């Protein structure tokens, strides 16, 4: 079985990487006049989105987009063992929806009007995916910045436990 990308290790992006990804998203959204472009990790964690639609449940969407890609890749693995760049296309009545892998750790969703030519969107998505893959490629010898300073010390686990209890309403 081929495994795609990061699994147990998780993903942490440096502020610089986040900025660079953001810039690619902004450009992609503008050039494709997309209603929505959304970036998620391969394990379904929402990163960022752009576009004219603001009423979407981004957390839920990110989980579905990642799952859709994972299922498609699993299907491909089962019937055709050669690895390939996965892009899922849906042509709706009013919108074209594209889901594409962007390097080993990211997934990209693009929702654009049917009036935008498919070839154009596809080309933009391919370009954006490639740049995102480059941005997130871990440079050899350069470890991810340690987020130690960000995580509160002391009784973090207790505090999180307390925070769960605080969520609860009867």
């Amino acid at each position: 079985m081929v495994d795609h990308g990061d699994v147990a290790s998780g993903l942490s992006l440096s502020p610089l990487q986040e900025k660079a990804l953001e810039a690619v998203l902004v450009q992609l959204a503008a050039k494709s006049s997309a209603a929505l472009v959304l970036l998620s990790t391969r394990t379904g964690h929402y990163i960022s989105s752009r576009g004219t639609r603001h009423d979407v449940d981004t957390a839920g969407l990110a989980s579905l987009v990642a799952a859709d890609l994972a299922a498609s890749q699993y299907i491909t693995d089962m019937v055709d063992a050669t690895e390939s760049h996965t892009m899922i296309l849906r042509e709706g009545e009013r919108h074209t929806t594209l889901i594409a892998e962007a390097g080993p750790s990211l997934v990209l969703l693009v929702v654009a009007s049917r009036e935008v030519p498919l070839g154009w969107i596809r080309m933009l998505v391919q370009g954006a995916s490639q740049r995102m893959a480059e941005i997130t490629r871990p440079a050899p010898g350069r470890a991810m910045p340690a987020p130690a300073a960000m995580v509160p010390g002391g009784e973090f686990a207790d505090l999180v436990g307390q925070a769960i209890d605080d969520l609860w309403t009867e």
Partner: protein
Amino acid sequence: MYINYTRREITVKVVYYGPALGGKTTNLIQIHDHVSGNQRSELISLKTAEDRTLFFDFLELQLGKIGGLTPRVQLYTVPGQARYEASRRLVLRGADGVVFVGDSQPDRQKENLESWLGMTQHLAGYGIELQGFPVVVQLNKRDLPGAVGVDLFRRTINLNGDTPLFEAVALDCRGVRETLRAIMERVVVRLKREISASAA
């Protein structure tokens, strides 16, 4: 795990795993119903017409700030029916912790064991050993007559003595919050350990 420095957020993924009809989806429904709308996403359920999980359920919780940091938790369930093995494997990908929901009914013990072994195998496929990985067990459906004893259940799945077990009646929300709290505490302990290790 996903860390966003700019927004100072840490998102972790917890998967509810277990045999068919054990009550995994019921746990998420209860959590959804007991957390106010501004601290959670909508519940997404990819299910069959008979309300059986087909791919997964998904619910995200946003916890209150802790030291300037916002923890988010993504909760997933797997589909328990035997034929969805491949989907279970996919949902487990990237999990930071698992809740195993076992069924108390005496005639479901074989399914408990099979599901537990399947989970162990999938995790191993992702390079994760159960030892040291955040796992919490919930023994559900304690309300049913003839429910098996906790000790028998522990022996059935050969559960190590350190793994916490919560008795639950998910349908009445008994044990649901306790289970969630316990897994989150364990996930966070491991997270801190990993982060300090990477800082060293």
